[in-house]
């Protein structure tokens, strides 16, 4: 598969005539576009440019040194993307990268709480990452309300997780991503019904016809006993670096989704909306439990830190490969350079403290970037084959094979015993262009063809 790559490497390298990365031919062809976007290129009025193929050698690229990673308030608070004009995947990247950076902070705070000697370097990098997160999160426009941003969160969880599931080398982890994907897929449908029925607006104006708005594995059956959300971790010694980067990234995205729903849920006046956020936040908590349990707990703190920095580099690199908005693209490039600087800072620390070669943990070059494109065919196939999956401890089984008194059935029945918000909100709901009210008025007949306008 041909992947898109950043057009420009770290600014530290640009201008070095004999840099190895620049030896690679940079060109753009029609077949790249088709391979990258499929028929979307032909079917869309506005398309995202495809970037040329350039390998990123993360040992060679030093990025921007930590002490030159600076901000101002004006720099941090920029013109946001347009809810109306920008591509849905620009919103997807902003929401996703906010999640990645939120987890950079979250993880480092936890490390600082349990390790005294790392506190100073952790504090230094964390401060820069706090500002990176600020700049990214503040790109969300003020006319995009919390429910609209929520639809964006679910589109992230579907399209990014689908890309990860397709690329994941470890079959067990790939299965886990597909398992979670079908649940987030259902969340988009439930929130879409809420958006249509509460605000009278069309959720597809946010997702822009990239993503299906149909039921997935019903949210009402996603509730599981905590023990059934734990998975088997990858083995740090044998796992492919991409496996580690995937697990770090999806854990980060889901954790931010949980935190976002927990923050905005109480802003709603409608009780079903408040219930739905409570319900889906609970699934996101399950998903964080699930995905973080994929991480090998025997990795040292510094190893985890190094891998997290690599994941951040990889994710900015992926955004850069696909971004069509030049203002936003410039930010991805800048933060790719910043993250490379941070990666090298931590690499030096890792090698000094642990006396190990960072190359034993990190890949030499970055894998193919996350594919920011629609994955409808893959999601539909997955839905068809795996909708009825459940988990029994770390193992995937058919839902029907769980006995009636299984702990997860008991747990779920208890939670749903006073009604299911996700079923209530979407009762009889089928997405229709222009909202379900558009379908209703269409049934009433044309106002120009004789139907009385009252």
């Amino acid at each position: 598969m041909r992947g898109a790559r950043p057009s420009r490497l770290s600014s530290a390298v640009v201008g070095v005539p004999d840099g190895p990365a620049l030896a690679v031919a940079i060109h753009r062809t029609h077949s790249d576009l088709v391979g990258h976007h499929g028929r979307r290129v032909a079917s869309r009025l506005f398309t995202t440019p495809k970037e040329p193929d350039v390998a990123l050698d993360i040992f060679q690229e030093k990025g921007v040194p930590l002490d030159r990673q600076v901000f101002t308030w004006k720099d941090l608070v920029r013109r946001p993307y347009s809810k109306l004009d920008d591509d849905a995947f620009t919103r997807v990247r902003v929401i996703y990268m906010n999640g990645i950076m939120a987890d950079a902070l979250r993880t480092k705070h936890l490390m600082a709480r349990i390790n005294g000697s790392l506190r100073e370097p952790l504090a230094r990098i964390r401060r820069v990452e706090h500002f990176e997160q600020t700049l990214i999160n503040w790109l969300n426009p003020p006319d995009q309300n919390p429910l609209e941003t929520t639809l964006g969160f679910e589109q992230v969880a579907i399209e990014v997780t689908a890309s990860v599931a397709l690329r994941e080398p470890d079959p067990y982890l790939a299965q886990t991503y597909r398992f979670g994907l079908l649940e987030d897929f259902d969340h988009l449908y439930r929130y879409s019904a809420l958006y249509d029925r509460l605000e009278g607006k069309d959720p597809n104006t946010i997702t822009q016809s990239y993503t299906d708005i149909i039921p997935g594995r019903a949210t009402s059956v996603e509730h599981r006993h905590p023990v059934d959300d734990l998975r088997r971790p990858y083995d740090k010694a044998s796992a492919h670096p991409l496996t580690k980067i995937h697990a770090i990234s999806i854990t980060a995205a889901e954790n931010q989704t949980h935190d976002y729903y927990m923050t905005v849920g109480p802003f709603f006046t409608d009780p079903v909306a408040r219930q739905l956020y409570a319900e889906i936040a609970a699934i996101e908590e399950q998903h964080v439990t699930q995905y973080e349990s994929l991480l090998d707990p025997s990795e040292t703190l510094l190893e985890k830190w190094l891998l997290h920095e690599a994941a951040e580099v990889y994710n900015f690199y992926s955004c850069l490969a696909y971004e069509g908005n030049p203002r936003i693209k410039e930010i991805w490039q800048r933060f790719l350079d910043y993250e490379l600087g941070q990666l090298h800072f931590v690499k030096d620390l890792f090698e000094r403290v642990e006396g190990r070669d960072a190359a034993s943990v990190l890949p030499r070059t970055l894998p193919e970037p996350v594919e920011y494109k629609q994955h409808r065919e893959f999601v539909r196939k997955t839905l068809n084959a795996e909708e009825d999956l459940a988990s029994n401890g770390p193992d995937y089984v058919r839902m029907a094979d769980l006995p009636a008194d299984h702990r997860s059935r008991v747990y779920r029945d208890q939670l749903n015993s006073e009604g299911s918000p996700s079923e209530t909100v979407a009762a009889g709901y089928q997405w229709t262009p222009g909202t379900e009210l558009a379908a209703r008025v269409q049934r009433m007949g044309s106002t120009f063809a004789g139907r009385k306008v009252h």
Partner: protein
Amino acid sequence: MKKTTSDMGPNRTGIATSPIDSADIFQAAQKRAPSSPGDGSLLLEVRKQYSLESGGVGHVPPPANLKGVAKTAVELLKGAKPTVFLDKLGERLAFERSGSRLYEGALAKLDVYGSWEEGPTQEGLERILNDELSHFALISESLTKLGADPTAVTPCADLVGVMSMGLPAVLADPRTNLRQSLEALLVAELTDNASWELLIELARGLGHDTLADRFQLALDAESEHLVLVRGWLASGITLEARASSPEELGAPA
């Protein structure tokens, strides 16, 4: 900076942006059945259940001081439930105070975007701003005279805040121009006019004629605001619809 509001460009929100994808997802949505039967009315059923258990958004506070207690006791004679009047006064106070901020925002827009023929003027916007401030003062004094605390947020004041949440957001958004801001001011002025009328009716019904007379002066001013704002907006929309060059849309004040 964008003076115009309705230019053609790469808006991606409609299904026509991507006809093939849109047809594909619509077909998929038609094929896949909902996970349970019913319709949107189930949301309303749950809302009803919660309504039955609800304790409302809050209360009107008791009188501010002992003097207030005495006065409120006197005022009790003028109505079976004087807190209704206090609640509505609290609402007008909140709306007029927030309204002042809206016009401050409109003046800032005027500085940046300028006006147009028969559009808002600095003097016109400042006059309305001062009127809103004086109406805030009028209600504040009225509440004090009735023994109530003008700094308290009454239930109606809280709700009018929820209702009008979008208005300051429109004015404060640097992406909106003066014409777009006038759309928000129109909503505010329409509500303001109807609400003053209701308040006057209530005051007269309760026998607060002196207050009602003062409030009538405020309503007279609000009626003028509405005429002004509607006129500014109409001329702005008409001008943009007809303008062939950006220069015709006015210059910064």
